[in-house]
C-alpha cells in the first residue's frame, strides 16, 4: 500500500514537471577508466575532460545532470534500455554505432591513434605484436590489416602488456597514451600514427531527438565562444577546433 502511495505521489510530481520536458534529470553514462577523458578521482567521483565538459553542457542546456558509470562492454545496450540518457565516454562516432544510437555533433576533432612501445625499432608492418583493448576501433583496425593482434579486457592491461614484453606496441587514442609516454621513461611513441574513426560525440537514444537538439546547441555554443577549445587544451585531449 505504501508503495502505491509513493508511486502515485511520484506520478503527480512527474506530471507537474511534464512541461519542463521529459527529462527532469538527465543521467550521463560514462566508463570512468579512461583518463584524461573520464576517470575516477581520489575522492571516488567521476572526473576528467568529459566531466567538466558535461557539467558545462548541462548548465548551458539548463538540464539537471547526474553521473553514472557503466562497463564499456554494455554501455550501449544500457543506453537503449533507458538506464541512463546519454553516453559521454570518449566514444568515437562510427557508422556501426550510428545505426543503433544517435550522436550529437562531435566535441573533439578526430584523435589520431598512436603506437606506444618500449623501443623505436618496433616494425608495426612487419609482424610486430600489437595490443589493443577488446572491441575497440583500434582492435578492429589491426585485425583488418592482418597484423598480429592481442586483445586485453581493459586499457590498463594493454599498457602492462607492452611493459612486460607480451606485446611490442599498443595502439590506442593518443590522448590516452600521452601521459604514459610522459611519465614512464621506458615508453615512447612510434612515429607512425593512424587516423581511425571520426571525432568523439555524445551518444543519445534515437528516439530522444529533443535531448539531442539541446546538447547539439550547447556544444555549438561552447565551440563558438572558445570555451570548448580551452577545455581541450587544459586536458590535453588533442587538436582544437
Amino acid at each position, binding site marked *: 500500500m505504501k508503495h502505491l502511495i509513493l*508511486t502515485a505521489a*511520484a*506520478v503527480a*510530481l*512527474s506530471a507537474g*514537471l511534464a512541461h519542463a520536458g*521529459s*527529462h*527532469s*534529470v538527465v*543521467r550521463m553514462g560514462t566508463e*570512468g*577508466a579512461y*583518463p*584524461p577523458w573520464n*576517470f*575516477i*578521482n*581520489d*575522492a*571516488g567521483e567521476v*572526473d*576528467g575532460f568529459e566531466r567538466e565538459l558535461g557539467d558545462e553542457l548541462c548548465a548551458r542546456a539548463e538540464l539537471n545532470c*547526474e553521473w*553514472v*558509470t*557503466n*562497463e564499456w562492454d*554494455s554501455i550501449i*545496450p*544500457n543506453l*537503449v*534500455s*533507458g*538506464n541512463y540518457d546519454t553516453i559521454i565516454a570518449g566514444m568515437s562516432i562510427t557508422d556501426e554505432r550510428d545505426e*543503433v*544510437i544517435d550522436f550529437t555533433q562531435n566535441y573533439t576533432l578526430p584523435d589520431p591513434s598512436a603506437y606506444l612501445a618500449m623501443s623505436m625499432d618496433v616494425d608495426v608492418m612487419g609482424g610486430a605484436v600489437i595490443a589493443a583493448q577488446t572491441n575497440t576501433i583500434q582492435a578492429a583496425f589491426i585485425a583488418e590489416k592482418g597484423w598480429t593482434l592481442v586483445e586485453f579486457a*581493459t586499457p*590498463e592491461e594493454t*599498457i*602492462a602488456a607492452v611493459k612486460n614484453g607480451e606485446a611490442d606496441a599498443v595502439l590506442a587514442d593518443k590522448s590516452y597514451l600521452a*601521459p*604514459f609516454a610522459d*611519465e614512464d621513461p621506458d615508453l615512447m611513441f612510434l612515429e607512425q600514427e593512424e587516423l581511425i574513426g571520426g571525432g568523439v560525440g555524445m551518444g543519445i*537514444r*534515437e*528516439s*530522444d531527438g529533443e535531448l539531442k537538439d539541446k546538447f547539439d546547441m550547447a556544444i555549438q555554443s561552447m565551440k563558438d565562444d572558445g570555451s570548448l577549445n580551452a577545455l581541450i587544451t587544459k586536458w590535453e585531449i588533442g587538436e582544437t577546433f
Partner: protein
Amino acid sequence: MGLYWSFVTVLVLLAITAPTALLFGFGGATAARANFLPLRWFGKAYISVVRGVPDIAFFLFFVIALDQMFELVRHQIFCPGWAEEIWQGNDFRVCPEAKLPLGNAAQWVHEVYGFFLAVLTFAIVFGAFSANVLYGAMMAVPRGQMETAEAYGMTRAQAFWRVLVPQMWVYALPGLSNLWMILIKATPLLFLLGVEDIVYWARELGGTKQARFSDYPHGDWRLWYFLGLLIFYLAFTKLSEFVLERLMRRLSHGQATIGAAA
C-alpha cells in the same frame, strides 16, 4: 572510501541473497516434485536450464532483460492509453511513470534498484542450484518416515510440512554449505551486474595512477590489491567452514546419520 563500502556491499548482498536463493530453491524443489504435471515440468525446467548455463553468460544479458520486464509490466498497469510503440527500432521506451526507478529519482535510489536487480539475478541462479540440493534432500528422507506419517492419518500437506521439511535440512546442509562457498566466490562477478564491488575497486584503485590525475600517483598496484582480496576470501571461506561445521553438528544431533554417530 569506495573500497570499504564495497566490502559492505558484498557482505550485505550475500546476507540477502542466501535466504532469497533458498526460498527460490525451496519453491523450485517443491514444484519439481508436485503432482500437478505442468508445475512439475516448470520446476524441473527451471532447475536444469539455469544449472546448465554458465553464470557469466546469464549475468551478461539477464539484468537488462529483468529490468525491461518490470518496466513493461508497470507500463501496462500505469499507462493503459499509451499510444507510442514501446520498441522504437532499438530503443526501449516505456512511459515515464513506468520507468524503474523513476527518471527523476535520486542517485541512491538507482543504486539500490541496481543492487536489488543483482540480488534477484543471483537468487534466481543460485535458487536453481539450491533447488537441486533440496530436491535431493527431500528424496533422501527415508520413505518409512513419510509412510509412518500417512499411517498416523496426516494429509499430504501435513506430512510435507511436519515430517519431510524438518528432516530434510540435515541432508541438505552439506550441499547448501558448498553452495554458500560457491556463492561467496561468485561475488567478483558482481561488477558485471553494474554493482561496484570489491573487484571493481581493486582494479580501479590498483590501476596506474598518474601524477596529473591524482595526488597519490603510483604504478600498477593491482597485484597487491588482488593479493589482499585473496586473503579476504580465504579468511571468509575458513570462517564459513567453521560456522557451518558447528551448525552441522547441532543439526545432526538426534538424527540417525553417520554424522551423528561419528
